[in-house]
């Protein structure tokens, strides 16, 4: 029931966002700011940075350019901040287009209203427009725009346009002034950027904090992620509301061709089968399908078997790069990572990746740190409501030689990273912070985590053994005076001489002892 409700909520948000013309965007925002990640001033700041960075990364990757992103936060007063975001590559600001909306392609932002929400939030709290500088050629001057959102027409409006000098050779700069609150810690801008650097080893990030600290997150690879393919929705992943809208908006002339064109894995035979089951003539016009008929069609789809959706639409980080990303941001002793083969939940393909960092300078006595990613975006809020947290807690870490009380996160010096890549990540709510509890997803997460856990366990056993052996070898040194004094008592030979000779032998045999598992050839 709960699941159903959130689904309905999501459809509403999607439809409302898509059909912005029909209601006032500012009243939509006011009513839904908690869904959009602006429920408090602390989160507003983080969400703004997040939307700007996600957008910049998606935009550059679409152009096949390695992202290089600069973020600066300036504090004007207790509650007033300026967020500056710059992306160096030569692309024009294409900020305010919800182009990604309901296109089934793995991408960071899935709503397409993210950045507009930030602009709107800034506008509503400070009345200031967004300031954009864009320069596409070092020889040409930069363009300067001031945009605001016309809340009556729900359209971006350029209120000032100018040609300016900019010291960068090319790139885009976005500046937003907003009411917010700055904080450090687990849900800070710094933490968000650090985690982004882990999951996106190809992005070079640079950050200047309100305290004027300059932090560089260099890239660990120069290759861009494989561009995910766009796929049509799989029939089993569709919901009634969406089906009705698709019927209304399709260019197909018959229901049969509608099914074939708009969905993946439906051929003419399957399309006919569905029409027959729904008792709808295959050649009826989609636009004339009434609600009841649409429901029959929906039921018919649910009762039909389809081939699983294609999975080449996913672009995992890949285990090697995820581990590289983790290595450069986390100071630990042992790293392991894995990428699961793609799987499917409710008609949507998805793929799970996991990486662990253990030992080194990590906190020994506290709970393991869990870092969650969805389509390479860090999830900083609602950890306890997330399917990733549940899956990790349900894993029996005691079997891997780690501490864990009941079904909670394990205790020890380690970091657990889980990434879910999907064309449609099922979040529990529109603020996109927790993954919904689909059994298929939980199962895959557990398998990925277990695979890493087993490797960690074998590493731990090995180091414990090596450590014990080293300690035993160290004991020889302490045993020698004891042996010498007993042998002196037994044989009457000089204690000093015996000690010296034994110490010489130990020194000579030490390499061989360490090599041969504590034995001498």
């Amino acid at each position, binding site marked *: 029931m709960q699941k159903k409700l959130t689904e309905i909520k999501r459809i509403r948000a999607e439809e409302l966002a898509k059909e912005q013309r029909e209601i006032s965007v500012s009243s939509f925002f006011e009513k839904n700011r908690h869904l959009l990640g602006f429920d408090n001033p602390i989160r507003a700041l983080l969400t703004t940075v997040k939307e700007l960075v996600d957008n910049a990364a998606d935009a550059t990757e679409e152009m096949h350019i390695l992202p290089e992103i600069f973020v600066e936060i300036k504090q004007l007063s207790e509650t007033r901040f300026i967020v500056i975001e710059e992306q160096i590559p030569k692309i024009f600001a294409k900020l305010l287009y919800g182009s990604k909306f309901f296109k089934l392609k793995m991408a960071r932002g899935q709503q397409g209203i993210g950045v507009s929400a930030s602009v709107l939030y800034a506008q509503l709290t400070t009345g200031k427009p967004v300031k954009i500088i864009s320069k596409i050629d070092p020889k040409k001057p930069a363009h300067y725009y001031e945009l605001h959102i016309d809340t009556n027409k729900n359209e971006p409006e350029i209120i000032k346009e100018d040609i300016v000098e900019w010291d960068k050779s090319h790139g885009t700069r976005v500046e937003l002034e907003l009411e917010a609150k700055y904080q450090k810690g687990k849900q800070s801008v710094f933490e968000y950027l650090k985690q982004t650097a882990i999951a996106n080893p190809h992005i070079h990030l640079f950050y200047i904090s309100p305290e004027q600290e300059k932090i560089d997150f260099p890239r660990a690879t120069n290759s861009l992620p494989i561009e995910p393919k766009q796929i049509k929705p799989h029939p089993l992943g569709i919901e009634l509301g969406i089906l009705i809208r698709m019927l209304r908006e399709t260019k197909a002339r018959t229901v049969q061709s509608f099914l074939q064109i708009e969905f993946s894995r439906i051929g003419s035979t399957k399309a006919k089968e569905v029409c027959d089951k729904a008792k709808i003539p295959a050649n009826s016009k989609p636009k004339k399908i009434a609600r009841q008929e649409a429901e029959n069609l929906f039921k018919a789809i649910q009762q039909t078997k389809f081939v699983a959706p294609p999975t080449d639409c996913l672009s995992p980080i890949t285990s090697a790069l995820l581990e590289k990303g983790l290595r450069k941001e986390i100071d630990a002793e042992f790293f392991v990572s894995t990428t699961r083969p793609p799987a499917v939940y409710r008609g949507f393909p998805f793929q799970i990746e996991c990486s662990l960092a253990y030992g080194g300078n990590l906190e020994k006595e506290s709970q393991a740190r869990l870092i969650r990613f969805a389509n390479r975006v860090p999830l900083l809020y609602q950890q306890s409501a997330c399917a990733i947290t549940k899956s990790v807690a349900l894993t029996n870490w005691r079997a891997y030689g780690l501490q864990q009380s009941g079904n909670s996160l394990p205790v020890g010096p380690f970091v657990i990273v889980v990434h879910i890549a999907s064309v449609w990540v099922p979040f529990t709510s529109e603020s996109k912070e927790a993954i919904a509890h689909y059994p298929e997803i939980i199962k895959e997460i557990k398998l990925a985590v277990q695979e890493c856990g087993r490797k960690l366990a074998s590493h731990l056993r090995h180091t414990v053994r090596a450590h014990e*052996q080293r300690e*035993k*070898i160290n*004991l*020889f040194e*302490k*045993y020698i*005076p*004891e*042996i010498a*004094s*007993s*042998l002196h*008592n*037994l*044989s*009457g*030979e000089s204690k000093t001489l*015996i000690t010296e*000779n*034994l110490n*010489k*032998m*130990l020194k*000579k*045999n030490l390499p061989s*002892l360490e090599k041969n*598992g*504590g*034995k*001498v050839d």
Partner: protein
Amino acid sequence: MVVKLTKTKSKLQDFGKKIVKDINHKKNPTITLPVRSLSNVGFDKKTKTLMLKDKIANRYFFNVAHAKKFLQTVEIASLSKNLLDEDKHASLRDVFYMAKRTIPGTNTNIVDEQIESDAVIEDLELITDSSREQLHINANKMGSVAGKVVIKDRQDTINWAKLGSGGWSIPSNVEDIKFVKMSAKYIIYMEKAAVWERLHEDKFWEKQNCIIMSSQGQTTRGIRRLLQRLHTEFKIPIYVLTDFDPWGFYIYSVLKFGSISLAHMSEKVAIPGVKFLGITADDIENYDLKKHLIKFKETDVSRLSQISKYEWFEKNKEWQRQFKMMKELKAKAEIQALSARGISFISEKYLPEKIKNKEFLD
């Protein structure tokens, strides 16, 4: 006596010198000794006792798996030499405490449990070819004896016939005891101290002109050595009286053939000449003990089947008959069950009759 002491001492010295020689030759210091596990113990048909076979193990100092055991061995050897030097005797427990100290600069003790030092002492017996008593290490004394025997122990003359209700308690080391007078015709060794007290009160040893000896449960080394000395020095028979159960049979087996853990000592403690007097399966029938049987437990069944497969019992028809009868009864009986027939039934009827009719198992 002085000669013997020096012999053990010089063996300990040789042991130390051999290791020092290894060290001077830059050889990994090594202690060589026979393996003392079940795999290296066998029944020797010639002596009819359990003996060590010839598997040899080396204990190296420069080997993390051996180093501590190596250290324990030289440490306890040195402790034993000190005992010999000072002509003092220590108990197994004393030795454990003398060796239980922390090695400076570590949190490791030379020994943590008495089992460790006890095992090393047994190793030293093999290394020096001396008994633990000769190394001046004694076990707790246990067991009593009475009979028409006069002995000399250290400076004292002791008459086993004149020691009141307790009898003489048998020490761990009986090596240096001298028999001054001995006129007994046989020895009865029994598993139970309570039965010994019955026989002692009834002056059984006086009437029968024998020696009665007991321990509580397992027979200690001192008792086994004392029995062996009396048996070989005076050529008198020894009859064993135990409960009618697999454990009673085992006590007899250890006395006669030796045990795995003391296989290296068989020569000194095993007495192939002992005979089993009772309680036998036939006694259950003949003395009407059926109503005093105690039902077998799981462990009794498996123990019986183990014992019946012992190499030295396997081809003995008489013993196999006993095992079979016990197996069929699925029950055991205590010696004290005889008291149902009257408190002195055992001393007045059972024992004299059995001995007179020579009803023994060999």
